[in-house]
């Protein structure tokens, strides 16, 4: 490695001496005004300094990025990232390609074991679990078992990858959602690597094969979602090529009012940024309001970057980042390294430091103006204030489809379908809520909204309310940490009393794995051509995504998801008291005056403690034992893995191949090579 600008220095920390590339040195040498660069650009610049080799990363690349301007022009950045995360949908093809490369090397007489990810890769299995069983204590075990049954072949391949490949870890199904696992466990914020006898410290950074990879930006870690080829290239040690983006500075000030949640805030931010236009840009948050946001709130905002269209929604490292690392049980030496390192290189956010930064564009939001909101019925950026949701829904029923309505005729509005069960009967109408799901990486990682949902459930149960029989309920936490703190705070039984039993740890309803509706409900919806609704604490709601029978899909905080249960219809969520604990929410019979989770915005260390985090994360790489397939044979070749048409390997490596189409007749995934 070269060091044209002589930025390599050493740093003393509690855990010893580290080498590092000092960005501020560039300013002292008069190369560029680094202190005026957005923090996210500084992280990219550090990567160039550390990886300068005169071939993939050159001196000119460093100079060009160091001189980034608010109007950056065309600056090509060969970015070397520290790690890669994958989920099972996109990760399977990547593992198949790696296996194919191993076979190619073996056929050329090389050692297949040399093919491994150069950059550490973690694959979290979260996309395959479906909500088959719900509303019962055995839902989780049943769904996990079904998941293994359906995906046996794919999981055996991944298991092979875990056993055979170095630098590649698989977090098993039933553990958590990749982005929350990343936030709580995988992300180091500052990484270390031995190089030439010196341990280098440098900022954590990654690409992931999932668009919500940006969630980790809430922790000051650079990263975003990419396609499979790009992720494979990064895994194999190639740079990720990009143009230096514009960076939008988004100032937050004030404080969220009582009753408004991180979900309301992110829906508001999404609406603002979609209007402004941030596609292809970074968004960096600054200002006094940032310090008032918990790390979980920041992660919720960073998570939805793809919905507002930005490449990243970045929160630089600050005091709150260190607090969160402590809360999630990261080792004290790491926390000390993060603090010492980020302060030494100018990556630690302080009011003075952020005042110097020049952004390409400026936006701002007074947090005190955020109100309880939902988004829907068809797009995440269509925010509706809670107080207007009933009117908005009714208006959408008759609006033409072109204007994102449902195009119903006046005559169809009063449609009702009677559903008869053995011991009960009820009517479904337009607006009946048939799915209520507390799910997704966006919200279930956030104790303030999860505990809030638990508190509302407690109040509702104590008031004698019950979930309407047509609502398919599901609770899919982002990780076991969530279940632990809901249990520790004594709130889980109340959620379960409303039939919010844990159905799995994964994306579930949010990516359309809501599972089928009960047969009689689905039949009634078809019969009446009803516009029924889902309400979920997720990030996307495009038509047809959540469930084929459900046309109206609203994104909302977990509390609001709970608040629909005893009403059972969208049209009954009405002002002025959405939190009223009565079936109809009429103000005169309201039994509470305000949101019951007031005190949960800043959870005390009680329900969630570093030691409970450590217990949960220790389970991370073990997962659940339910339905786990027996381990495949060990070894570096893929022989013995099952053969079926869902996974086959690649004929890409033509010059390494025998020069014909077809398979090589090997068992396993019938690796085939070809000369097109």
């Amino acid at each position: 490695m070269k060091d044209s600008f002589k930025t390599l220095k050493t740093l003393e920390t509690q855990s010893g001496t580290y080498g590092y590339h000092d960005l501020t040195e560039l300013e002292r040498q008069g190369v560029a005004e680094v202190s005026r660069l957005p923090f996210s650009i500084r992280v990219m610049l550090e990567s160039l300094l550390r990886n300068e080799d005169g071939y993939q990363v050159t001196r000119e690349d460093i100079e060009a990025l160091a001189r980034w301007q608010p109007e950056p022009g065309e600056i090509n950045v060969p970015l070397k990232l520290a790690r890669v995360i994958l989920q099972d949908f996109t990760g399977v093809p990547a593992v198949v390609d790696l296996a194919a490369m191993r076979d190619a090397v073996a056929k050329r007489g090389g050692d297949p074991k040399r093919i491994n990810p150069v950059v550490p890769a973690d694959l979290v299995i979260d996309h395959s679990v479906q909500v088959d069983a719900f509303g019962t204590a055995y839902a989780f075990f049943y769904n996990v078992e079904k998941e293994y049954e359906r995906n046996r072949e794919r999981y055996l391949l991944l298991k092979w990858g875990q056993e055979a490949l170095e630098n590649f870890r698989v977090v098993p199904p039933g553990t958590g959602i990749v982005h929350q696992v990343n936030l709580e466990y995988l992300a180091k914020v500052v990484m270390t690597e031995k190089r030439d006898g010196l341990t280098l410290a440098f900022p954590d950074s990654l690409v992931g094969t999932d668009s919500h990879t940006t969630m980790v930006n809430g922790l000051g870690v650079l990263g975003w979602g990419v396609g499979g080829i790009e992720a494979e290239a990064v895994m194999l040690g190639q740079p990720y090529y990009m143009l230096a983006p514009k960076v939008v500075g988004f100032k937050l000030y004030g404080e969220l009012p009582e009753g408004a949640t991180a979900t309301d805030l992110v829906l508001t931010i999404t609406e603002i940024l979609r209007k402004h236009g941030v596609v292809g840009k970074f968004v960096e948050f600054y200002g006094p309001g940032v310090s008032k946001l918990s790390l979980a709130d920041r992660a919720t905002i960073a998570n939805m970057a793809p919905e507002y269209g930005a490449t990243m929604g970045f929160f630089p490292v600050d005091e709150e980042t260190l607090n969160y690392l402590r809360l999630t049980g990261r080792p004290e030496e790491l926390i000390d390294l993060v603090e010492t390192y980020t302060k030494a290189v100018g990556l630690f956010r302080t009011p003075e430091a952020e005042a110097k930064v020049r952004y390409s564009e400026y936006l701002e939001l007074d947090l005190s103006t955020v109100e309880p909101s939902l988004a829907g019925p068809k797009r995440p950026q269509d925010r509706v204030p809670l107080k207007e949701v009933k009117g908005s829904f009714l208006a959408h029923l008759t609006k033409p489809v072109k204007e994102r309505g449902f195009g119903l005729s006046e005559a169809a509005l009063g449609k009702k379908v009677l559903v008869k069960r053995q011991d009960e009967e009820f009517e479904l109408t337009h607006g009946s809520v048939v799915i209520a799901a507390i799910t997704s990486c966006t919200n279930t990682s956030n104790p303030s909204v999860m505990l809030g949902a638990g508190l509302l459930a407690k109040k509702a149960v104590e008031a004698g309310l019950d979930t309407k029989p047509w609502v398919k309920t599901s609770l899919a936490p982002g990780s076991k940490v969530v279940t632990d703190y809901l249990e520790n705070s004594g709130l889980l039984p109340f959620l379960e009393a409303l039939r919010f039993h844990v159905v799995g740890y994964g994306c579930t309803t949010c990516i359309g794995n809501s599972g089928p509706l009960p047969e009689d409900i689905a039949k009634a919806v078809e019969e009446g051509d009803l516009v029924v609704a889902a309400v979920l604490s997720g990030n996307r709601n495009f038509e047809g995504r959540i469930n084929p029978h459900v046309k109206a899909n609203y994104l909302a905080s977990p509390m609001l998801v709970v608040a629909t249960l005893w009403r059972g219809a969208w049209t009954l969520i009405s002002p002025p008291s959405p939190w009223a604990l009565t079936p109809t929410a009429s103000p005169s019979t309201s039994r509470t005056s305000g949101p019951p989770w007031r005190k949960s915005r800043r959870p005390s260390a009680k329900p969630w403690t570093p030691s409970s985090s450590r217990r949960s994360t220790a389970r991370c790489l073990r997962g659940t034992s339910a339905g786990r397939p027996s381990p495949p044979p060990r070894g570096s070749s893929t022989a013995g893995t099952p053969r079926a048409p869902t996974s086959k390997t690649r004929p890409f490596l033509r010059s390494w191949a025998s020069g014909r189409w077809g398979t090589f007749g090997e068992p396993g995934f019938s690796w085939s090579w070809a000369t097109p």
Partner: protein
Amino acid sequence: MGDIRGARVLLVLGDSVTTDHISPAGAIPVKSPAGQYLISKGVKPEDFNSYGSRRGNHEVMMRGTFANIRIKNLMLDGIEGGYAKKLPEGDVDFVYNVAMRYKAEGTPLLVIAGKEYGTGSSRDWAAKGTYLLGIKAVLAESFERIHRSNLVGMGVLPLEFLPGENRETLGLTGYEVYDILGLEDLKPRKLVEVVARREDGSEVRFQALARLDTPVEVDYYKNGGILQTVLLHLLQEAKAE
């Protein structure tokens, strides 16, 4: 990496062709080559699942490449869907079937397109499928950033018409036979020579910009793609040890 000679055009496409046109993610129709392949493997149509869920299987994915029902191959006078014409015979068939016939006779293939080729999500199968059909180069007025880099990563050459030139100004129909010359000593953003021979024997010669933007990309292309480049380096390291 030598010149491309005697290439045929598989598709002529308009502006803003998306990665979803190139590699659809949705349902697999029973009558499509991918559907027929699955049936031949004993998969029932109700278990077809989607293209998206079959990304582990190149046999399905390459049959789904350019199979979007809304794609328009301008060589086919208004027919919509994933079809192409085998030349010089002139038979129209699914893109996959035509590509395999060209492959059988050893004919390299090209795609000609308009502006913003490959917009939309960064679907890597759009590049993988292109390569697997035997397409050696895509000649377009402009490329979307990620898809261009994915094409290079798969060893497919992105070529850009010079400013002011396009398929229409040059009078190209897709019925020509193409040579692409000057690929032996590639360097970043090199102008290469394209010769298109019409059916009547006349020739159109023009230059196009090879959109290999950096020395690293030139190496990827020369080695046949990213995976091959990494393999090559590894084997060289092994020899050196």
